[in-house]
């Protein structure tokens, strides 16, 4: 086993995929010679050649569209959208084409594409480098949507995504690329080497898509969350002393309903946490599902702790970010109800 941060884990996954399967190709803005603005593809063009690790024009829609064509022609493209905030120019190709191709052609054509993109805030990126648009994609039938919260899952899930014959939108919470973040920006940064999930096998392994993970067992309440917020929720549970069970959803679509159901049926109380804006967000789906599955077990209203319904503001990042305090307040609310 090796110590890896999330960037290294993702890099290792792509390196293995490129080595193992000659049809795997990477494409994206600045990912080739330079190795990507977050360095996730560092060294891969040097190792695998510029015909397999392609720098691309700045046209997210064109990148996804050409990747679809490559996918149909037997390749397995892994594309990078430099920031999730810039995925919208590719939205039509993802929603109208990539997600529907297999269905509309009755299985005759499909494009096994992985779309990697860094998301989330906490890096002073303002409104165009901080968004969490995962909820929008979960509403689109025909694509899988995932977000790992640690290096081990990042590598294992990226390999699953690449090997999957369905399209996968793979969100990477950039705030935790280099280390887990507990929501307190004033604390010194922690590296992944201090975290158990920073231990990552060097070889090939997969973490399945469609399975949530209980990252902290507990009995008093269930926190359902994913990405950066997993770590913030852990810190909040610790600090509050509340015996909260924390579920890392990991796979937003398809969703592992069984794990959610079992937990909330046990605890009877549920807090949902995500960075994305609240209204119409993925937390609503989680809430609706939990309510449908666990109605008779619920002892308090499900709480949503989320980003506010505003664009992500540059200066007020920490007032915007759903930090420990808000999670603790929500936990108290479900316990005291």
């Amino acid at each position, binding site marked *: 086993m090796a110590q890896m941060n999330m960037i290294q884990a993702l890099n290792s996954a792509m390196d293995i995929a490129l080595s193992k399967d000659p049809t795997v190709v990477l494409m994206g803005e600045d990912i080739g010679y330079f190795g990507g603005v977050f360095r996730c593809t560092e060294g891969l063009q040097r190792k695998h050649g510029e015909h397999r690790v392609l720098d691309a024009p700045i046209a997210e829609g064109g990148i996804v569209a050409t990747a679809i064509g490559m996918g149909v*022609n037997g390749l397995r493209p892994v594309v990078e959208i430099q920031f999730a905030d810039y995925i919208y120019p590719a939205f039509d190709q993802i929603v109208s084409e990539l997600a529907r191709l297999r269905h*509309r052609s009755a299985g*005759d054509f499909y494009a096994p594409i992985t779309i990697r993109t860094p998301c989330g805030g906490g890096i002073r990126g303002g409104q165009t480098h901080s968004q969490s648009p995962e909820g929008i994609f979960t509403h689109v039938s025909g694509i899988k949507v995932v977000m790992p919260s640690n290096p081990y899952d990042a590598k294992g899930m990226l390999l699953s995504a690449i090997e999957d014959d369905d399209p996968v939108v793979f969100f990477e919470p950039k705030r935790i690329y280099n280390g887990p973040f507990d929501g307190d920006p004033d604390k010194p940064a922690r590296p992944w080497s201090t975290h158990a999930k920073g231990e990552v096998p060097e070889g090939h392994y997969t973490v399945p898509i469609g399975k949530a993970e209980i990252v902290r067992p507990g009995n008093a309440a269930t926190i359902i969350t994913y990405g950066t917020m997993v770590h913030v929720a852990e810190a909040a549970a610790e600090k509050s002393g509340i015996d909260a069970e924390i579920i890392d959803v990991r796979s937003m679509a398809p969703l592992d309903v069984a794990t959610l159901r079992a937990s909330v049926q046990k605890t009877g109380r549920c807090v949902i946490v995500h960075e994305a804006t609240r209204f119409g967000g993925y937390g609503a789906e989680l809430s609706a599902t939990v309510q449908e599955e666990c109605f008779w077990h619920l002892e308090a209203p499900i709480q949503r702790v989320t980003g506010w319904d505003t664009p992500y503001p540059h200066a007020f990042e920490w007032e915007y970010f759903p930090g420990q305090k808000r999670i603790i307040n929500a936990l108290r609310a479900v316990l005291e109800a």
Partner: protein
Amino acid sequence: MIQKSRLHIPHPPARPGDKPDFSYLQISQPGEVMRPDVNTHAMDMTDLAHSMVRVLKDDGKTTGPWNPHLEPEVLQVGLRHMMLTRAFDERMQRVQRQGKISFYVKCTGEEAVAVAQTMALLPGDMLFPSYRNQGLQVARGRKLVDLMCQCLSNTRDMCKGRQMPIMYHSKEGNLFSISGNLTTQYPQAVGWAMASAMKGEDNLAATWIGDGSTAEPDFHHALTFASVYQAPVILNVVNNQWAISTFQAFAGGTRVPFAARGLGYGIPGIRVDGNDFLAVYAVTAWAAERARTGAGPTLIEHVTYRASAHSTSDDPSRYRPKDEFEAWPLGDPITRLKQHLIQLGEWSEKQHEALEKELEKHALESWKEAITYGTMTEGPSLDPSNMFEDVFKEMPEHLKKQREQMLAEGDK
């Protein structure tokens, strides 16, 4: 306020009640346009984008360097494909009017584009069509009955009832799935072609859109990526003058021909008489040779006219003169190829009439067979619960649950 407007608003040459007027159309003389070497740099053949490649003269004879010198048998096959396409269209329009299918789109007057191009390409070349290129299906040998079953969404529909009529595809025929969204297939074709080059294979990709569809962003994506990576792709713009009710000037096609869009990206643009089977064949073969020899992409603008309504939901008499097609200076592609063959002594009016009848009959018989596999209201029908399949490769839990619910509850 807007009384003072100085905005330029494009206009078609004629509206209902006006006399048709095609004086805006730049037409070259047959044989007039040079045929450069396929390795010529785009900038050294800009005239190809502004003039018009034509081979067939008014008297049915051929002329000039673009003459592809095809054997009469090949021309007869081309004529047959075009006539079959038209017979198919007529039959389908009729059954749509009878309420047997929900929707249809004809390509009348544009048959040469799809048919000649398919014949100039190889079976391994991948075609990314729009909804108005049924000639590709016909020329690639798809059976009418298969196409009809798609339009019927019946038990033999290759889309399993999931798509509207005319959204055919064929995996073995290398005919890509048609999308209802305009232009999306254009950059996909470029990606397919890039993959072909990456794999060191010789197959090229070809794709089609209409004049109006050039305004969509995927047009720009396709041209940019094709130019940057020199993809072996043929990008076709079928300029039939109209996009539903909108004259092609609203896509900027009268200011500068669509073929010239390529030049700004370093992609050769060729403007061709889209109703001249020989000219379309020749420019396609030229572009295919370019692509196959690694010389890169080509943009072809086919100048033609949409003789029918946009679709069975449209009534063109609301926005253009009823007799516009009669005044169309480039004629009818079938008539023109017929005359050429007659002039060659390889065809006759009698043979033509007989073939017309035969194909009509074939279309009717195909229809009769197709409906035995089910119609919208009668006969065998697909199991609706198949709609839950192929959303993903394997059906996830929530879809299994929804399928069960549907089966348990019944409909309505």
